C-alpha cells in the first residue's frame, strides 16, 4: 500500500520534472532541428600539448560575451611550476607554485622563479568538467541548471534566481555570478556552435590541438576523440568527489586539482 502511494507520489513529481526539462531544452540556443538525444559530446585535454598562449580563454570571452573583469571565466589556464626539492630534504619535488594571471588570457609573464630551481612546469586548461553527477545541477533550487541529454550542463538565465548555490557546489570553480544578468554562468561548450556542427571556440582556436572535442554518438573517420582515448592514459579532476567528470585529461600531474 505504502509502496503504491510512494510510487504514485514519485510519478506525480517526475511528470512536472520531465516537463520542466523539456521546457528548458526548448530555450537552449540550439536550432530547432537539433535533437540532443542523438549526440553525446566529450572534451579531452592533453596537458603536455598546452603552451599557455591563452588564446582559448580569449576566444571564449569574445565568443560568449563573458564579462571582461579578471574574475569571470568560462575557461582559463593554470600554470604549474614545481620547484626542485631542497638538498637533503628527502623529497622528490619541492614547492608547487600555481598562477593564472587574468585567467591566462594573453599568455603568461616570465616566472620570477630562477630557471635552475624549476623541476618542471606545465599549463593546464580548465573548463566546466561536464560532470555526469553534476553537483551544481543537484543543488539548484529551481532546476534552472540542467543536464542535457547530449552531455552538456546548461543554465536557463531566464529562470535562474541568482542564489549562488550552484557556484558553491561546483568543486572546480567553473561558475560565476554574472554582474550583467545576475544569474549563474558557466561554460556551455559553445552550445550555440556545437549544435550547428561547429567546434567550441576554445577548441577551434587552440594552435596545438591540446583540446580535443567530439561526438561519441557520431564518430567520424579517424576520430580524434577515439584516438586520444586509445593513445593516452586519461584522468579526471577530483575523482574522489564522485562527480564523474566528462572532461578527460591526459598527462595530468597529481598536483592539479
Amino acid at each position, binding site marked *: 500500500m505504502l509502496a503504491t502511494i510512494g510510487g504514485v507520489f514519485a510519478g506525480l*513529481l517526475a511528470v*512536472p*520534472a520531465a516537463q*520542466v526539462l523539456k521546457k528548458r531544452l526548448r530555450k537552449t540556443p540550439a536550432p530547432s532541428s537539433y535533437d540532443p538525444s542523438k549526440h553525446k559530446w566529450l572534451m579531452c585535454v592533453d596537458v603536455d600539448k598546452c603552451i599557455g598562449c591563452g588564446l582559448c580563454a580569449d576566444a571564449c570571452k569574445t565568443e560568449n560575451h563573458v564579462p571582461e*573583469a*579578471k*574574475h*569571470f*571565466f568560462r575557461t*582559463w589556464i*593554470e600554470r604549474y611550476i614545481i620547484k626542485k626539492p631542497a638538498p637533503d630534504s628527502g623529497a622528490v619535488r619541492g614547492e*608547487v*607554485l*600555481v*598562477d*593564472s594571471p*587574468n*585567467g591566462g588570457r594573453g599568455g603568461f609573464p616570465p616566472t620570477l622563479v630562477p630557471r635552475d630551481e624549476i623541476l618542471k612546469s606545465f599549463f593546464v586548461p*580548465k573548463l566546466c568538467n561536464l560532470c555526469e553527477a553534476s*553537483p551544481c545541477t*543537484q*543543488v*539548484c*533550487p*529551481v*532546476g534552472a541548471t540542467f543536464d542535457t541529454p547530449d552531455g552538456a550542463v546548461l543554465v536557463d538565465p531566464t*529562470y*535562474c*534566481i*541568482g*542564489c*549562488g*548555490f550552484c*557556484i*558553491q*557546489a*561546483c*568543486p*572546480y*570553480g*567553473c*561558475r*560565476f*555570478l554574472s554582474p550583467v*544578468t*545576475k*544569474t549563474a554562468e558557466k561554460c556551455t561548450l559553445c552550445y550555440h556552435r556545437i549544435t550547428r556542427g561547429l567546434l567550441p571556440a576554445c577548441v577551434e582556436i587552440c594552435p596545438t590541438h591540446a583540446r580535443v572535442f567530439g561526438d561519441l554518438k557520431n564518430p567520424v573517420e579517424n576520430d580524434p576523440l577515439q584516438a586520444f582515448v586509445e593513445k593516452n592514459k586519461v584522468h579526471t579532476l577530483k575523482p574522489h*568527489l*564522485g562527480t564523474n567528470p566528462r572532461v578527460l585529461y591526459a598527462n595530468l600531474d597529481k598536483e592539479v*586539482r
Partner: protein
Amino acid sequence: MSMQLTSFLAEVAPHFEGYVYPNESGTHPLWGVLIVLYPYITGLVAGAFIMASLVRVFRVQALEPVYRLSLLTALAFLLCATLPLLCHLGHPERSYQIMITPHLTSPMAIFGFVYAWYLMAVLLLELWFDFREDFVNWGQTEPGFRGFIYRMLTVGVTDVSPKAVALDHKLSWIISIVGIPSAFLLHGYVGFIFGSIKANPWWGNAIMPIIFILSAMVSGIALCVFVYMVLTWLRRRALDLRCLDVMGMYLFYALVIDATVETLDWIHRAYSAEEGFRVMEYMAQQRLFYTLSIGQVLMGTLIPLVTLGTFQVARKYISTAIRTRLYFTCSVLILLGVLAMRWNVVMGGQFFSKSLRGVMSYKLEFAGAEGWFLGLILLSLPFIILTVLIHLFLSQRLPTSGHVPHRLETK
C-alpha cells in the same frame, strides 16, 4: 594588526595568498553577511520554540513565565528568517519559483516547504490555539482598532466554553509535540544546506545539521533569557529567579552538548587530516582567529560554560544581583558567540579556494546589499516585530486566561 581585524575597521584591497581559481578572486565572497544572518535567525527560531516546548511538552513548571514570550519570539524571528535570503538573491522577483517548481534534489528548495510547514502548521497554529480564549475575551473588552484586531484573530471561533477551551489546549499540546521535530527539521535543514556541499571541506560534513540544531538550541534559549530580562527591566518588574535559574540550567546543558559535539567534529577533522585539513588549520589559526578562537570558543562557549557550570554547583553561594547580571552577560556572550559561529561557518567556507592552494580576505563594507548596515537592519527587524507582538499580546493591562500550559493537556 591582523588582516581579519583591519577588514572590519577599514577598507582593504582584495587580498589573496597562494592560488585561488580566477572565478573565486572577486572582491567579495559570493555569500556575505546576509547568508550569515540566515542560519542565525533560523536557529534562534528553532531554539526559542524548543524553549517553549519545555513548558508545554516536558512540563517544566518553572518556565511558565516565558512560555508565551518564547513562542512570540520564535514567531518574530521566523517572520524575518527568509528576508536575508531574499535580499541576497540576484533575482528576488523569481524566488516564488522555489515553491512553484522546486527542484527536489536541492536542499534549498525543500527548505521553502519546511519553512512554510513550520510557520503555518506549527507556530501560528500553536499560538492561535493558545491565545484563542484570550482573543475572544480581549475582543469583547478592548475598544477600537485594537479590539477589532483581536476579534479578527478569533476567525469567528468565539466559543469559550470549558470544553472548547480544553480542546484548544489539547490541540495546542499535540501541535507542540509535532513542533519539536519540526523545529529540529527546520534548522537541521539549514545545516544540511551547508553540510551537503561536498566541494567544500569546511562545510561538507555529515554532522553539520546536528551542530546547527544544537547551536540553535543554545542561541534560542539565550535569546529567551535576554528578551525576558530586558522586558522585565523595562517593565520595572521583579525577575522570577526560579525561572531564570531553570533557563540557565537548560542553557548550560545545551551548551555542554553543543560544545562537545563541535569539539568532536574538530578532533575528527584533525585526526583524519584529510586533503583540506591543512588549509582549514591555517584558517582557524590565522584568518578566523578573532571570530573562532576568541569570539566563538572563548567568549561564546568557555566563559558561559564555566559561569553557568559554577551556578549549577554553587548557586546558593552567589548573590542574586551577581547571578542575574551574569545570566544576562552569559546570554549576550552566547548570542554573539553563536553569531560568530555562523560567521565562521559561512565565511570560513569561502575564505579559502576550492583549489585548496590559497586563501582570501574579506572587506566587510558598510553600505550595499552585502554591507553590515543592511545586516544590522535585518537583525533589528525581529526585535521591532517582537515589540509590536508583545504590545499586542503580552500587554500588562490585558487580563490573561491564566491557564497553565503544562497542566492543561492532562485535563
